[in-house]
């Protein structure tokens, strides 16, 4: 019997990978991909919760999360393109415009 713990551990692992990717990759696109990884981890949690609790709200939530992820990816990639045009690089070490 596959209980929820298995899924939760797996999801935590995915989330960890995603976080490390966000923190330690220099390529902006890689950062975005890691964010997608994190979102997928969350999706897994929701779906498994929905299965375990006998409620479909979790799956509906996943629907919305995917929608939002798509929007965010779209806008984020547009910004990457704009940044690349402007600065010629997507290396996060060089992109320090928000310096206060």
């Amino acid at each position, binding site marked *: *019997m*596959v*209980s*929820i*713990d*298995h899924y939760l*551990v*797996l999801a*935590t*692992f*995915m989330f960890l*990978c*995603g*976080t*490390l*990717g966000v*923190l*330690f990759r*220099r*390529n902006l*696109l*890689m950062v975005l*991909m*890691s964010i*997608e990884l994190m979102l*997928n981890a969350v*999706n*897994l949690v929701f*779906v498994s919760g*929905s*299965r*375990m*609790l*006998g*409620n*479909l*709200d979790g*799956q*509906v939530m*996943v*629907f*919305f999360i*995917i*929608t*939002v*992820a*798509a*929007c965010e*990816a*779209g*806008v984020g*990639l*547009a910004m*990457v*393109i*704009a940044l690349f*045009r*402007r600065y010629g690089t*997507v290396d996060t*070490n060089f992109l320090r415009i928000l310096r206060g």
Partner: protein
Amino acid sequence: MTQELVFLAFAALIALCSMMVILSRNAVVSAIYLVGDLFSLAGLYASMDAHFVAAIQVLVYAGAIVVLFMFVIMLLNLGPDQRQHLQVSAPEVGVLALTIIGFLVVGGMLLLGQPTGVTGPLTAEAIENAGGNTYTVGMVLFTKYLWPFELASMLILLAIIAAIVIAKKEQNKDGDTRRLAHG
């Protein structure tokens, strides 16, 4: 038994692909691994009887978002990341350790106090009887979550407009560059 095997297989795939996503040097290779991740997740969802979500995952996530990523990667035509020792310094190692420990702790906590059994009306059998997963998800989506549904469509519209405006080519007349990047 088959349940567990299926889960194990998919879980192994997911773990492997996730690690390779963040460890690859080449962005395209990372994207491929991400696709692998997504497909395995979809399989996992399907094994959990969440057919609708699985289909959406493949269609939208793997089929659109990653494709979009690919487009941008190829548009920017980046070479492989220079392997520069992952650029870690002392405080960052500390933070890394803290993060990993933190997650392990959280994971342990989750493992300790978890609910067991099914506690809701929509068991797998009930969903089957009602007409299948897609049908019931649709029913919930269009009755209880109608408002968020409509707002989500507005959100998509906004995102489209924003993406178009942000990524527009800058126009070089009157020296008026840079304006469009700020939207």
